[in-house]
């Protein structure tokens, strides 16, 4: 059988339809990689081997019978373990839900099944998508394949690990303050947080209702575009779901950036003492390459980053506390220490504090929209540094090295794209931010950066070869 571990989603689809490989072969190869690589990396909380093989058998039978469900037909994927899966344990990586078996699928799981996808299993997360990396939970934290002594970032930790270690090409994450884009940045992957309301959140355990977004992590921009094509759209059972037409996300991937206008909110990262020189040099190199490729790239002014971060935190904490209050009252010690310590402070936010944060959200969203009237997209960094070691993890709430939460506050689509390796061998990335519901432009610019940066030529961690 051909080596399938580096095939893109599109290439796997072509091979399936050409008869060069079967969905069952793709699934068995992925399961073998998981068996070989996961013990040292701990991406998977549960491998659903029987389900994967059943999904793959169905995909093969349908293709043979002439039924083609589209680009995800027969493609292996995995889900962060906060996505409900009917009959399959969904733990939120927590002792509180370690035996929880949902009766129905999340909207995303339903769509991926209907699209012919092959579910490999459920992935590690920071507990309830907020507390980690932790060693006081029922499962160990996922490790960074680029260097297992380093963290992945969170909270979609297992999703990033599984893809960077080439176990799977695409996995779903969730992003409340950067939980897709952060792990993508620190693990050398593409991670998109679509516009708020673009993908249904139904059946995904909430952290903060008005900041939560679902989205994929993947090896390439094209993989992410194909996945969003399957998942985007109105869900009347998600109160935040948007009723906005879904364009062809792959149509613009090869158009390049000639004639585009891109704004850079340089003050976001240039004045941050935590920014390492390689990250600044990385985005400046990308800006130069974009200009050479015909884009106009200019510095732009947005409100202070601190205001975005404050609004995000003051919105997130009371919403999270409201979700967890009853459990925290009864069984606080069943939470991991990091989760509990972070969530309980939400009790201290007054109604006026919360409303002030919502006033800030309106102001900040208007400010970003005003800048985007003059630019096709914004470009900033995803993280100020490379992935820290497990023995020196950052406090991702009070002094986060991520530059991601502004666009959870405003709801704009934002995607992290890797652009190179720092001298320590760990990935650095940039972040593209689009107009609301203009993920197609984010993918177009991201695809150009992927190629201009030479990321295509970067070899993934040697141990995974």
């Amino acid at each position, binding site marked *: 059988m051909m080596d399938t571990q580096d095939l893109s989603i599109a290439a796997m689809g072509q091979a399936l339809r050409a008869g060069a490989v079967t969905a069952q072969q793709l699934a068995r190869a992925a399961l073998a990689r998981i068996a070989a690589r996961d013990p040292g990396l701990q991406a998977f909380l549960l491998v659903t081997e029987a389900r994967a093989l059943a999904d793959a058998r169905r995909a093969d039978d349908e293709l043979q019978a002439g039924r083609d469900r589209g680009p995800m037909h027969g493609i292996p994927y995995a889900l962060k373990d906060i996505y409900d899966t009917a009959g399959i344990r969904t733990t939120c990586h927590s002792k509180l839900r370690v035996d929880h078996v949902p009766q129905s699928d999340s909207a995303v799981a339903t769509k991926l099944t209907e699209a012919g996808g092959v579910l490999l299993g459920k992935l590690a997360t920071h507990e309830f998508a907020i507390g980690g990396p932790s060693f006081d939970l029922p499962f160990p934290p996922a490790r960074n394949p680029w260097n297992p002594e380093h963290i992945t970032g969170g909270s979609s930790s297992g999703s990033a690990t599984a893809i960077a270690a080439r176990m799977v090409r695409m996995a779903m994450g969730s992003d409340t303050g950067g939980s897709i884009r952060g792990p993508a940045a620190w693990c050398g992957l593409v991670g998109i947080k679509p516009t708020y309301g673009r993908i249904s959140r139904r059946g995904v355990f909430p952290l903060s209702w008005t900041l939560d977004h679902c989205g994929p992590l993947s090896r390439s921009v094209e993989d992410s575009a194909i996945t969003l094509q399957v998942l985007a759209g109105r869900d009347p059972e998600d109160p935040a779901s948007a009723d906005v037409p879904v364009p062809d996300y792959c149509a613009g991937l090869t158009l390049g950036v000639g004639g585009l206008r891109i704004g850079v909110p340089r003050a976001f990262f240039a004045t941050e003492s935590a920014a390492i020189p390689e990250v600044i040099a990385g985005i400046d190199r990308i800006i130069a390459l974009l200009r050479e490729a015909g884009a106009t790239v200019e510095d732009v002014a947005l409100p202070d980053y601190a205001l975005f971060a404050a609004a995000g935190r003051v919105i997130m904490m009371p919403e999270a506390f409201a979700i967890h209050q009853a459990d925290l009252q009864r069984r606080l010690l069943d939470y991991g220490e990091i989760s509990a310590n972070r969530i309980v402070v939400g009790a201290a936010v007054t109604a006026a504090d919360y409303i002030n944060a919502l006033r800030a959200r*309106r102001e900040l969203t208007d400010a970003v929209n005003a800048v985007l009237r003059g630019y096709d997209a914004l470009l900033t960094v995803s993280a100020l540094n490379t992935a820290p070691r497990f023995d020196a993890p950052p406090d991702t709430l*009070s002094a986060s090295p991520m530059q991601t939460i502004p666009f959870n506050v405003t709801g704009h689509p934002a995607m992290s794209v890797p652009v190179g390796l720092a001298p320590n061998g760990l990935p650095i990335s940039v972040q593209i931010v689009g107009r609301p519901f203009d993920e197609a432009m984010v993918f177009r610019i991201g695809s150009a950066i992927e190629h201009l940066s030479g990321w295509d030529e970067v070899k993934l961690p040697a141990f995974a070869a």
Partner: protein
Amino acid sequence: MADTTPPEALAAEFDCLMARAGITVPESRRTAVLTAYADLRNKIALLHGRYGAAAEPSNVFRLSPVESK
């Protein structure tokens, strides 16, 4: 603008808020939680006094007509 509440007052306020919320923070975790609370207070202070009465929050909503069946 940073929050300037003295540490003792901050701790007393925090204890009161936890009691009101029905939360018992173990003594072993108190220092870490108080640190998180102090940081959150600084974030809150950034947003305090910034807006006049005309500045409406983002969750102000509008209704659509309901059609009869």
